[in-house]
């Protein structure tokens, strides 16, 4: 059992992340202190939540390029609402961010479900539209920290058991996703619809609807992260989270979510995001320029994809060991 755990993709990846973490700790012991660990996790929380949403989308053989633009639009929207109506309750604002995000996600999902437009095309389009709408909404102006209410900025920072609410939100998302993907009918459908859409269809799964749900969830989480982002950095502007969708997709791919759909776990996805988080935090400490960070993420993605491709070859070897399977098909 332990062996299986270590040899699993999640196991290997965890070991790499831990090795990096403690490796940097040797150079700079502060890095592995409890408070810094919490801060790394907190830094990575938004990435984790977005990656979980993206995982659903990728599982169903789609991709959502509009997440970062969604973050920017929703973030700007709630920041402006807060600016002009500072007396509105935080509960309402969070609900609003979830709602706006869900709406933007639903637009993607409806196109994919009802019009069968390839998701890369539709989200490439909405990515620009949402970002452009952010500009129109704000007229290019920034919302700065002094224009935000105290509770608007304070909520993600509020600490419970010395972990900020932002981190707790990620923890809640992880637990919720873990349960849903393992035990709910709803979660299982993502694997079926992405693994073999035809078989899922014949088994009574509405594949298009499942894809819609994936975009809806991805959008909803993006909306929440929109609020969290502008609150955490205490500023909202058009270029918020510019290009962040690539890090989100990278986290999924590094975490073993198969880009062709049907394969991927919550644990893998979270570790993939943590990997990027640790790299981001470690590089400045060991004196490497943050520009290297992108190259390193890129390298890791390529290694991850090659690892996926070679594990695919192993599959073929298993089939060949039993020549009947292949020849039966050929005899046809």
């Amino acid at each position: 059992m332990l062996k299986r755990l270590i040899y699993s993709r999640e196991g290997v990846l965890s070991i790499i992340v831990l090795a990096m973490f403690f490796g940097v700790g040797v150079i700079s012991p502060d890095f592995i202190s409890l408070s810094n660990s919490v801060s790394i996790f907190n830094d990575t929380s938004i990435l984790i939540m977005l990656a979980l949403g993206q995982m659903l989308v990728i599982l169903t053989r789609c991709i959502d390029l509009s997440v970062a633009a969604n973050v920017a639009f929703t973030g700007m929207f709630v920041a402006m609402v807060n600016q002009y109506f500072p007396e509105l309750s935080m509960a309402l604002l969070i609900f609003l961010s979830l709602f706006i995000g869900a709406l933007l996600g639903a637009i993607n999902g409806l196109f994919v479900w009802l019009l069968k437009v390839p998701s890369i095309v539709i989200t490439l389009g909405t990515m620009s539209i949402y970002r452009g709408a952010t500009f129109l909404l704000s007229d290019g102006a920034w919302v700065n920290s002094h224009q935000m209410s105290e509770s608007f900025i304070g909520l993600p920072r509020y600490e419970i058991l010395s972990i900020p609410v932002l981190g707790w939100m990620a923890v809640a998302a992880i637990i919720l996703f873990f349960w849903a993907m393992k035990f709910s009918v709803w979660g299982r459908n993502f694997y079926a619809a992405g693994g073999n859409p035809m078989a899922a269809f014949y088994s009574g799964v509405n594949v298009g609807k499942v894809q819609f749900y994936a975009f809806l969830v991805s959008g909803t989480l993006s909306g929440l992260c929109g609020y969290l982002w502008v609150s955490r950095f205490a500023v909202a502007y058009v270029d918020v989270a510019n290009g962040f969708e690539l890090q989100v997709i990278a986290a999924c791919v590094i975490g073993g979510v198969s880009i062709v759909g049907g394969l991927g776990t919550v644990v893998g996805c979270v570790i993939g995001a943590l990997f990027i988080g640790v790299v981001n935090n470690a590089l400045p400490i060991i004196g490497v320029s943050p520009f290297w960070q992108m190259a390193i993420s890129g390298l890791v993605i390529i290694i991850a994809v090659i690892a996926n491709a070679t594990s695919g070859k192993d599959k073929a070897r298993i089939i060949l060991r039993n020549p009947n399977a292949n020849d039966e098909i050929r005899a046809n």
Partner: protein
Amino acid sequence: MNNAIFSLKKVSKVFPGVKALDGVDLHLYPGQVTALVGENGAGKSTLVKTMTGIYQPDGGEIIFNGKPVQFHSPHDSHALGITAIHQETVLFDDLTVAENIFLGNYPLTKRFSIDWAAMETRSQEILSSINAHMDPNQILRELSIGQKHMVGIARALSVDAKVVILDEPTAALSHHEIHELYELVNTLKSQGKAILFITHKFDEIFTLADRYTVFRDGSFVGEGFIKDTNESQLVEMMVARSIEATYPKKDVAIGETLLEVSNLCHTTEFANISFSLKKGEILGVYGLVGSGRTEVMQALFGTTDHVTGSVKMNGKEVIIHSPKEAIDNGIVYVPEERQKQGIVLELPIYQNVSLPQMERLAKHGQIDQESEMALARQYCERLQVKASCWDEKVMNLSGGNQQKVVIAKWLATNPKVIILDEPTKGIDIGSKAAVHEFMSELVDSGLSVIMVSSELPEILGMSDRILVMNEGLIVGELSRADATPEKVVSLATGGSVTC
């Protein structure tokens, strides 16, 4: 007999568990059309693949122009001028006619760049030699099916063809287009090419062919001149065999009418489909590929739109617009391509089994994995799926066991009617018997089975009743006692034999 340009002598091809070709002979003569006749599964496709170098024979000789030859790849046979035109030619919709004709074999200039001018001229030459009038620069997508077919033929003839194999070339063509194809065959004949013509349609054989060769179950049965034979003689050669012996059909008490289909129509695929199915009955549906049988079954399962007519279960009208509604009404469909359409390779066995009924197994949206496992255990053990545990991913199983998982999945939904589309296609003889035995068990336990098959012995051996389909219509219904191979084949081919 000695002037054959191309001969196969005692050629065998063995796949594990199946002897696809068992010492067959075939001779093709320049300027003559030889018709290859045989049921589905007689070994015709394997033969074509052997002739074109896709398969290498395990025994026997291939003789071309009096010399033994060996084909290591399709390229070798192509180089000798052996070319095949398949049922569904693989063409590229977004390329031009000329590009399609020369794809993979582009004429080059001295500087290794594609010689577009030569390609266009030569395309024009080939096209006019087969009386196909089209612009070589036209994009393929804009052509009709018949014209595309002509492009496929032109592609086959772009090499200096000496032997032309036509594998059911008329299957997808309209009446008018078929006529054009006949003319083409005659043109090729007059050019001295040796032609192998594979077809199910007797009228075509008697219109076009000079000679015939009959295969049955991978063996050579006979050959001769068309002028010396007639339709019933050919049918007899095709199907003669003892059937009862190999089919474990049990006598099951047949109950009341369970399913009643009346006047099922589809705008383009089938019309006026009416039949009934009784409890404990195996209803065989026979028809050639393209007769509409699969389409009717898919309509029953709710996967086809634009269907009118009524379906009654136990006398009550049911409305089925999606597979889910079909499953809820107790109708399940095991598709022909079981691996492609039936299984999610990435999921473990037990999750594949529970897929169609997760909602039933869930309480408040949470799946009860215990009952999922129990379900998988029960049905996979019954079907003797070989796996180390039910948690194993399906991709790690052999093909045969994957198929069993698909069947386990559907049985686990506790259906009343199970539709099996080509249940034994592509599986070896041993497994076939097991599937047939299993069908008997199914009806014994109170299910009703609709078996769609293009294998005649299976249809005759297993069915209580047989529906025969041709061109989207039910053209006959035969009881087990009345059915003879000749009657079924003749109905299915729209032939004129009445026995």
